[in-house]
Structure formats: structure tokens, C-alpha cells
């Protein structure tokens, strides 16, 4: 199992995380459903996590600083998702929809 990973070049990780990040980015830009939006943000964060983990291994850092950072990002992402979803629940209760366009109601 480990061998499979060892056979992978660093560039493969970069391609994969770029693809994941792009999927997340385009999802954020072009989807209107707030839940999907949050999921896409998670996707972007996790693509970065993947890259950090891969580079830590590639650089052979004994302290595994990059991987430590991944945990931080996961914690922050969890907190962000909790807050975001809470807001979303409230929005849904008030507007009966989860479309992000509700935000334009703050216009004059």
C-alpha cells in the first residue's frame, strides 16, 4: 500500500490538488446553493491540506510542520462550517430557501 504512494511523483499531488481546488473554486463561483458553496469551500481547503501533507513528505521534514498545519486548517474549517451552517439554518427558517441571492436584500 505504502509503495503505491511512494511511486507517485510530487507532481501528481500537485495536479490532483489543483484539480480539486479548481473544482471548489468554480463551485463557489457558479453555484447558488449555500450548502454547495460551503461544501466547495471545504473542497478547496482540503485540496490545500493534501498539498501540505504531500510536500511535508517530499521535503522529509522530521518535525512534520506541514502536517501540523493541516490539523489547524481542519479545526478552522470545522469551526467555519459550524458557523456557516448555523447561519444557513437561520436563513432557511426565514426565507425557506438556501439560495445565496438572499444576501442582496441588504441593498438599499
Amino acid at each position, binding site marked *: 500500500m505504502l509503495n503505491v504512494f511512494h511511486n507517485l511523483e510530487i507532481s501528481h499531488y500537485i495536479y490532483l490538488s489543483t484539480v480539486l481546488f479548481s473544482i471548489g*473554486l468554480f463551485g*463557489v*463561483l*457558479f453555484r*447558488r446553493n449555500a450548502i454547495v458553496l460551503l461544501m466547495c469551500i471545504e473542497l478547496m481547503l482540503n485540496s490545500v491540506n493534501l498539498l501540505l501533507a504531500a510536500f511535508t513528505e517530499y521535503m522529509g521534514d522530521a518535525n512534520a510542520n506541514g502536517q501540523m498545519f493541516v490539523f489547524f486548517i481542519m479545526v478552522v474549517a470545522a469551526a467555519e462550517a459550524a458557523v456557516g451552517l448555523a447561519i444557513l439554518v437561520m436563513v432557511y427558517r426565514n426565507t425557506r430557501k438556501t439560495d*445565496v*441571492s438572499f*444576501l*442582496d*436584500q*441588504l*441593498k438599499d
Partner: protein
Amino acid sequence: MNPIILILGLPLLGFLINGVLGSKLPKSVVGAIGTASVLGAFIIAILNWNIISQPENNSIHLDLFTFLQIDQLSLKVAFQLDRLSIWMTLIITGIGTLIHLYSISYMKEDDGFYKFFAYLNFFIFNMLLLVLGSNFLMMFFGWEGVGLCSYLLIGFWYKNEDYGKAARKAFIMNRIGDLGLLLGMFLIISQFGSLDYSVVFPQIATGNTSTSMLTAISLLLFVGATGKSAQIPLFTWLPDAMAGPTPVSALIHAATMVTAGIYLTVRCQVLFALSPLTNEIILWVGLGTAVMAALIGLKQNDIKKVLAYSTVSQLGFMFVALGTGAYSTALFHVTTHAFFKALLFLGAGSVIHGMHHEQDIRHMGGLKSKMPLTHLTFLIGTLAISGFPLLSGFFSKDEILTAVFLHNKVAYVLLAGSALLTTIYMFRLYFLTFHGQYRNHHHAFDKVHESPMNMTLPLMVLALLSIVGGALNLPTYVTHSDGFLLSWLKPLFIIPQSIHEINHNTEYVLIGIAVLIFVSGFLIARNIFVSKATVPAENSTGLGGILQNKFYVDEFYNKVFVRPLEITSSVLHDLIDGLILRAFTFGIFPMLKLVGRLNKKVQNGNIEMYLLYMVIAIVLLLGVNLIFA
């Protein structure tokens, strides 16, 4: 303790107490504090009279601290009590005490009672600062301070817009004079490197300064004096200053502040004695003022306006004396004038008080029976100012006339004419007010009453002083020696005051003429206003109209100075402010609106757009970073 601290400190303390706590204190306490503080200063000045009169030690000094030190020039807060200062101090605080006492009743009904007393005390403090300072800077502080107090007190009833305008007029006219004084002080600094009297005057006395420089300095100082002492061309503020309460007119605009110009000249005697050209100008300006104001006084119908023009005219007399080099004579007339003019003003105030704020003499008449004390004291004041023999005004005016006679015969004739006019307008005022029939509704006459005790008491004291005041400087033909004031001031003058010897026969002729002037003036006034019982018309025509309208000086100033200034400022307002500045400031508003409208398009609440901007921005930043890294 140094007496100067107390003399200056007591009125200042009174000002602070009344000014800060006055609104919470009862009126009786406020009045008592105000009066007592000035009385205290008066008593302390009297107690120090003996020290000053010692020949070897005739001044007390007080150096507090250095106010400003610029290179070699050091400006000190320092005072001196010498023969001239103590003379002025006694006039200021003595008459000031009486007028404070009088004001307690006169201002009793006024809401601003405590404010009035605070201002009066502050005025006394500033006036004392003016006469006690031992350098030009201290004098200038006092000079400005009395100007401020004068402004505050003229506009004391500030709810009347005209009074406010009169106050501003007085302030601005004085500022014009002050500019002259200030420039004179700058010249003194540049020439002598100091403002201390004790440094400047001995240097002048050495005679090393060029005459043209001395003339320039003395002329500039005289410009300052014309402003404060209401001489041509800056006299028009004083009659308008009658807008203030009557005690203010008596204290500030008759007895003390307006004599500051004479004090200045006497103080700088050495300077003026060495500038003959300035003396000649002072003489003719004073003479012009004396004659012109007396002429205007003939046709005024407001009791206070007559007295105001009389003050201007008498100040002219004093400047004539200064112009002839008779400095002690000018100071003598300052003193006697302070007595009888304060008396006349307070008497007028008593009439106004008793008549319930009626000031027009055409509506008075026959008040003799209603106000016996006021009538008697007013008569004494009138006699004193008109030069009734042996009263104070007789001696001082006679001294001035004698000095002018020896100096210039034409000036003598003009001044004697002015003295005749003085007698006429004063008796016109007296007869119209106290004699004849009452010229208003009869029920109003029944309400006329004599003033209370603390208004009549100052009147009686001042009347007594007006009678015996001449004793301060009796002429040689009475005592066969120099007058008291003349010898009192002698040690003060570095250059001795020139005293002209006069033939005794000539002197008796001059006295005869003076008596004749009084008698004829009295008879003329009596003939017109008692025998014929003439009442001044509403609008005089011809020459009388010109006099009634004060030679149209105000109108002239309005046309020549005020209107052009107004036109200039309105042009600036319309052009600079209206077109250029307005376009600029009001141009900003539509510009901001446009920017706002453009920004609104970007910030449309569409969250995908925001995210898109964010992504684009990040990509751009990364791109720039890659290219330029």
C-alpha cells in the same frame, strides 16, 4: 507688603469674586464687595501719600517678573507708584468709589447687577494698570484692558441692537488709535532698545535722538491719545458711548478712561517737550475739538449727549494745554473735570432715574421742586464747568486760557469762544431740565421722585470737590507761589516745564475776560431758555441743523470709510467667496455623488460577483508576483 500689590490686587479680587460667584450672591453683598475693593485701593493710596511726597524717595517700585525676553529686549511686568501715578490713582479710585456706591441704587433693578460690578471692578483694575505700569508695555495692557471694559459696559444692555453697535464703534475707533500707540512703541524699541520709562526718558533727555525721530514717535503716541481721549478725528465714538448705563458714562467716558491720552502725554513729557511740531499739532487738534464739540453740544437734546460733547470739548481744552507745554495745567483740568463731569453725569443719571428712563430734555422742565438735591448739585456742577469765579473749573480753565494767550493769540480767541459756548450749552441744559414748565404728561410729573441716599451722597461729595477743587493748584496771584500741583509734579519732569512769566495787569485782564465770558454766556442762555422759554425744535434748519446733525461727521465717515469697506467686502463676498470658493466646495458634492453611483454598481449584493472579484484579484496579485519576483 508692597502697596502696589494691594492697590492693583483689591479691584482684581473684587472682579474675580463678583465675576465668578456674583450670580449666587445677594445684590447687597455684590455691591458691597465692588465698592469696598475700590475704596480699599483708595485708602491704601492715601496711606502712601507721605512716602511719595518725600523729596528723596518719591516712588515705590514693584518688579514682578520678566514677561518676555528677546535677545537684548526684556519686557518686564513692573510697576511704579510715583507722583503722577498716585495723583491718577487717587482720582480713579476716589471717584470710582463714589460711582460704585451710586451704582448700587442705580442698577438695583437690573438682572446683570453682578456682571455690572464685575466689569466696573475690572475697569478700575485695568485703569490702575495703565497708570501704575513702569513701562510702555504695562501701560498698553491697561490701555487695551480699559478699552475692553469700555466695550463691555457700553454694550451692557446688549439686547438693544443700537447699543451693541455703539459698543463696537467705540472698540473699532479705539483700535485705530491703538495702532498708532503700538507703532510708537515699536519705534521706541528700535530706537532705545527698551520700553522702561526709566531707560527711555533719560536717553531722550540727553538730546542725542534726532528731532524727526522724536516727532515721529510723539505723533504716533498722540494718535493713540486721540483715539482714547476722543479727539478729532476719532471722537465720534464717545457720544455714542452714552448707550451704556449712566454710572459708566460718568466713570469711564468722562472722569477716567478718556483722560488716559492726557496721562500718556504727561508721562512722556520729556518726549513731547522735545518735539515742537507735535506740540503745535496737539494744540490745533485740541482747539478744533474743543470748538467743534462745543458747537455740537449747543443743539443736542439728549441730556447725556450734551454732557458727552461737553466732555469731548473739555478734553480738547486739556490737549490745548498740553500743546502749549503746560503739562501740570492739563493734569489740573483732568482733576477738576473729573470732579464736575462725574457730578454732572451722576446728576443726569439721577434725573433719568427719577424720570423713569426719560433722557430727552425737551420732555423735562421744572424738576427743581421735585429733585432739590439733584438740582442743587447739578447747578454746582454747571457753575463749575462754566467757570463761575472761585469754583474749580474757573481756576483750571483760566490757567489753560492764560497758557494759550501767551502761546498764540488766535488760539486764545478761539478757545475763549469755546468757553463761552460751554457756558451757553451747560446753562441751556440746566434751564431746560430744572426750570420752566414740565413738558410731558402731568401724571408722569407726579411720579418723578428724588433719588435715594446712596445716589445723592456721591453727588454731594462731588459737588463739594467741584467747589473746592481749585485749591489743588491755586494761581500765583492768589498764593504768591507756585500752585500745589505744579510743584508736586516738578520732580517728575526731567526737562523742566516751561512756565511763562506773565504781567500781573495782563493776568487781571484775562481773569476779567473769563468772568465776562461766564456772565455773558449765562445771560444769553437765560434770555433764550428762561425769559423766552424756548424749547428746542424737533428738527432745526440751517446752521442749527448742521449742528444738530453733528457736522455730519458720522455720515462723512460712513461715506468715506465704511461704505468703501462694505463695498470691498461685498465684492469679495460675491466674487471670491460666491464664485470661486463656492464653485470649489459645491463642486465636491456632485463629484462624490458620481463616484458613489459608480461604486454602487460594483457593490450590488451579489455574492458570486464578490467572490469573482476576489478570485480575479488573487490571480492578478499572484500573476504580478510571478512576473516581477
